[in-house]
């Protein structure tokens, strides 16, 4: 809840997106600020003055802040609260971002994927956008059944969404073992008393009126899957994004895995029609969000646009993937271990491990 002295992530993002151009004052240290900051769908001013500058010389630091309304941001909300207090004391209307970058990184927004009016079938697809990390997860609802794919660990959001939707039976599953964020699938399934499902390639299950099929799509990982809902909506996990493909280099076998990815793009997904709507598990920047507020692309468009589809020689493809190798996500080996259920971590550490945006695409320069 926002007040005169505080603002929550939801209201801040709504303000930015609607073009009201708030001024943000980020008070984290230089590295933290350089690595990861708040993004919006419209431009806004962002100023950087570390909080310790206010402790060192309060007056000098205040003078670096414009004398109009500002929202103060830090990692967890503690230092920004102190700075907002100092600024208000100096007559600047400052509000603290509740929970700081951690709250921003966890914030989830459910958005309905629009369907053509004349399309058959009684079902809804919801895309949960975790903007701070660029992670996307999904809930498909049909006639009281639901399936949740790739939930993040903010499981309350899904749980209350499903409750409000009056869902009776729920399946929860992941497209693959995530390396960049801790999955919420096990804990969500536990909370809901639902099935934590895993499917084999070619298997399908019924969700209300629709058929939900698993397609084995090795490449990003050997056990990656895409899920085809109602024959037309492809939850593509980290296999295929709207501006790139999933990086095949996280297992240290980039050549083998990229050959798998080549076959996946060409053959395993090759039979799907161009009109299939691709709904990925990640995006890299705000420009990938379409006018309907969702991240999605027609498969035909991707086949036309992405250089990865234009290479017809597997060895040439794996060379291309080798060139795209970059730093793995921080702590990815430990995150994988937790997502496999081999180890557990406490909440504070989980937050530390997940800091920053995802780095799951084969190319960051798009």
């Amino acid at each position, binding site marked *: 809840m926002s007040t005169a002295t505080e603002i929550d992530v939801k209201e801040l993002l709504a303000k930015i997106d609607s073009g009201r151009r708030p001024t943000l004052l980020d008070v984290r240290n230089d590295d933290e600020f350089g690595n990861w900051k708040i993004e919006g769908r419209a431009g806004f001013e962002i100023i950087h003055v570390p909080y310790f500058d206010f402790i060192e010389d309060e007056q000098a630091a205040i003078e670096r802040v414009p004398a109009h309304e500002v929202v103060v941001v*830090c990692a967890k909300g503690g230092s920004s609260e102190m700075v907002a207090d100092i600024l208000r004391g100096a007559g600047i209307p400052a509000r603290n971002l509740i929970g700081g970058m951690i709250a921003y990184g966890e914030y989830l927004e459910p958005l309905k994927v629009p369907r053509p009016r004349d399309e058959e079938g009684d079902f809804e697809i919801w895309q949960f956008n975790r903007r701070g990390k660029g992670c996307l997860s999904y809930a498909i609802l049909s006639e009281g059944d639901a399936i949740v794919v790739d939930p993040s660990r903010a499981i309350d959001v899904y749980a209350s969404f499903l409750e409000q939707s009056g869902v009776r039976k729920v399946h929860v599953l992941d497209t693959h073992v995530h390396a960049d964020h801790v999955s919420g699938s096990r804990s969500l399934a536990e909370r809901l008393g639902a099935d934590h499902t895993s499917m084999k390639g070619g298997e399908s299950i019924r969700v209300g009126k629709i058929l939900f099929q698993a397609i084995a799509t090795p490449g990003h990982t050997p056990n990656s899957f895409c899920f085809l809902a109602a024959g037309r909506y492809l939850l593509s996990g980290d296999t295929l994004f709207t501006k790139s493909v999933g990086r095949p280099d996280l297992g240290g076998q980039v050549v083998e895995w990229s050959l798998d990815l080549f076959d996946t793009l060409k053959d395993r997904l090759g039979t799907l029609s161009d009109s299939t709507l691709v709904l990925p598990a990640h995006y890299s920047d705000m420009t990938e969000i379409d006018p309907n507020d969702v991240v999605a692309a027609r498969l035909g468009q991707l086949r036309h646009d992405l250089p990865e589809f234009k290479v017809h020689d597997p060895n040439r493809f794996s060379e291309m993937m080798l060139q795209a190798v970059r730093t793995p996500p921080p702590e990815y080996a430990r995150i994988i271990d937790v997502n496999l259920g081999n180890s557990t971590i406490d909440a504070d550490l989980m937050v530390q491990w997940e800091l920053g945006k995802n780095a799951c695409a084969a190319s960051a320069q798009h």
Partner: protein
Amino acid sequence: MRKLDVRGAKCPMPIVKAKKEIDQMQPGELLEVTATDPGSVPDFKGWALTSKTAVLKEQRTEKEGATEIYIHVLERK
């Protein structure tokens, strides 16, 4: 050497308290700050870069059971 224990304190308190202590010290005097917040490591570095009163002489990490302890040694300018 003066000692300041800020174990358990979260940002911004470690630096707020260290600054208070430094302000009461004589030039050349040393202060050893013991913290548990991992964010204190880059933050003490960042603060000392522009501080008119504190110089960062040493930073080290020690284990206390399963807990990591961050030790920052500052000198009053």
